[in-house]
């Protein structure tokens, strides 16, 4: 019982964080067709902003929306400065990799300069601990496990039931046609980045209430989100979500049975094998076959 409960909680918790990160990454990827390497620092910056707001004495219920909205604005700004000017260039994928990497380095070092290298922590969403199935878990973790599906469901509703969400998906599917029917594609690009940054910030605040924060805290979640997105495929928003939880469980199980050390290598080995068999991702409808 102990082992399975531990894997269950670990998987749900990690899966929640990965899902929050991966969905934003996939959103940007599908709408704009670029990979945003600043996604990890979005998470970190969101956590640091929240810490700063808590530090000046604001209560957590105020801090949470404030930090998320601030990050959405920063995400939009970043898109406007390092992604939008490059749209339409033939080598945009490669150039955006380097501009977002550079932006990530900029923000990371800026945070280090501004807030210093000392580890920080945000107060948890809920205080206290409890024991379920013989495993001690914090209320904070349980809160995250419960809240994340709600947020993801809200995002799904937004993308599938609202005009704005449908417009966003239309741009992802066919940009030229979207332009023809009069959608403001540039603004929608900004919106995709803003939503992604907001979700990343939320993930950062969740993680910051659980572990110590550092300017490089976003690097590992970014890597995992990349894995999740490729593993799950990007044809729908549910692909990365399923994949996030699957990888969360895989990681928890591997940590338990093989140890922390071998988990990343094992994860990548499984992934490379998956891609060899299904290049378009586990949960994607079969796409155009590759040469």
């Amino acid at each position, binding site marked *: 019982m102990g082992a399975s409960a531990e894997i269950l909680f670990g998987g749900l918790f990690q899966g929640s964080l990965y899902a929050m990160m991966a969905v934003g990454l996939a959103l940007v990827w599908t709408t704009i067709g670029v990979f945003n390497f600043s996604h990890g620092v979005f998470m970190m910056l969101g956590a640091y902003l929240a810490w700063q707001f808590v530090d000046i004495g604001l209560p957590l219920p105020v801090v949470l929306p404030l930090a998320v909205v601030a990050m959405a604005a920063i995400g939009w700004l970043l898109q406007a400065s390092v992604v939008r000017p490059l749209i339409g260039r033939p080598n945009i*994928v490669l*150039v955006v990799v*380097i501009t977002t990497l550079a932006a990530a380095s900029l923000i990371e070092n800026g945070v*280090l300069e501004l807030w210093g290298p000392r580890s920080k922590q945000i107060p948890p969403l809920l205080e206290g601990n409890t024991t379920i199935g013989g495993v001690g878990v914090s209320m904070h973790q349980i809160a995250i496990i419960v809240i994340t599906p709600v947020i993801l469901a809200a995002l799904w509703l937004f993308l599938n039931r609202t005009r704005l969400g449908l417009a966003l998906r239309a741009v992802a599917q066919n940009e030229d046609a979207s332009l023809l029917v009069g959608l403001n594609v540039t603004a929608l690009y900004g919106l995709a980045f803003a939503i992604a940054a907001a979700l990343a910030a939320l993930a950062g605040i969740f993680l910051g209430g659980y572990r110590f924060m550092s300017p490089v805290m976003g690097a590992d979640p970014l890597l995992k989100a990349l894995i999740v997105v*490729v593993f799950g495929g990007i044809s729908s928003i549910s692909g990365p979500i399923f994949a996030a939880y699957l990888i969360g469980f895989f990681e928890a199980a591997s940590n338990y049975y093989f140890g922390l050390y071998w988990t990343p*290598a094992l994860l*990548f080995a499984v992934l*490379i094998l998956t*891609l060899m068999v299904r290049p378009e991702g586990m949960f994607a409808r079969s796409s155009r076959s590759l040469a």
Partner: protein
Amino acid sequence: MTRPIGTPGRASWKEEAVGMVLGFAVLALLPFLFTDAYSRHVLIMVFIYAVVASNWDLSLGYGGVFNFGHLALFGIGVYAYGLLTKLMGLDPWLALVASGILATAAAILVTIPILRLKGIYIILVTFGFAQLVMQVILSQSDYTGGTQGMVRIPGLYWFDHNMVRDGKFAYFFLALGLLAASTVFLRVFVRSRIGAGIVALRDNEEYAIARGISLVRQRMITLAASAFFTGMAGAFYAAYQRNASIDVFGMSLATIILSMVLLGGTSTIYGAIIASFVLTVFAELMADFGAWRPIITALLIIVVMLAYPTGLAGLIRAGWAATAGRLRRTAPAARPAETT
């Protein structure tokens, strides 16, 4: 519109050979100008980075293969040299060549899973390959020293010459020789039929395949060709620094080298070399700025990429065209991917 061979943007064999000889002759004079060990050290690092970056340009720029495991090939070179010389007592020069061969073998191995993949998926698999290599090195800490790294790796030798007390004179010329060999190889490669085939695959995969170019073979050749000198550069780096550390697999080094490739301008080889020089010297000049250094460097990269999408090579080419009064009908920036 077809462009006849030997047209604008493509220098003839002779012109290029003369230019290359002149360029390397100027570089060879530098140690007589800079006699202190520190300046020479900076130049040696420039040459090592230039080899790694220009070879990356082969797979990334010409091949269009987003190989994010390139630095792992460099790392394999570093550790192969360290293990071969220190544990197996192999002659340093033999180990240098063996490291290049091992990196090539590793590149062929990593090509197998990416043969069916495209674009962003290749990034993940090659990135995963780099992580795997790093984990293997970390886990074999009895041999590799794990996170501690390897120290006291034997250096290279040159007859009876004292490599340590010559103000890095000998290492400078060895590094320059490595860069020269690598550059000649790369330029001959990209100007050859195989090079043309690789570019054709990048620009129009379906058409190239229809014309009988084998994607599998070309992709393997591209990655293998980009690996040999990268592995040698890794081995040279280990011999020069006399230690090996796991940092070579880190994101920060990969970012720096990648920005050299893109800042220089892809598909030029020379661009990556020039950018290695500019970025390394720039970073050294700004040593006083401390923590602000990476911030300024990042800003510089963004500004250059936004203003000059073809990188420094495009900037130089545009400047050359303007000063020489050879403004062509189409501006360099407006042309599609360079195939010089």
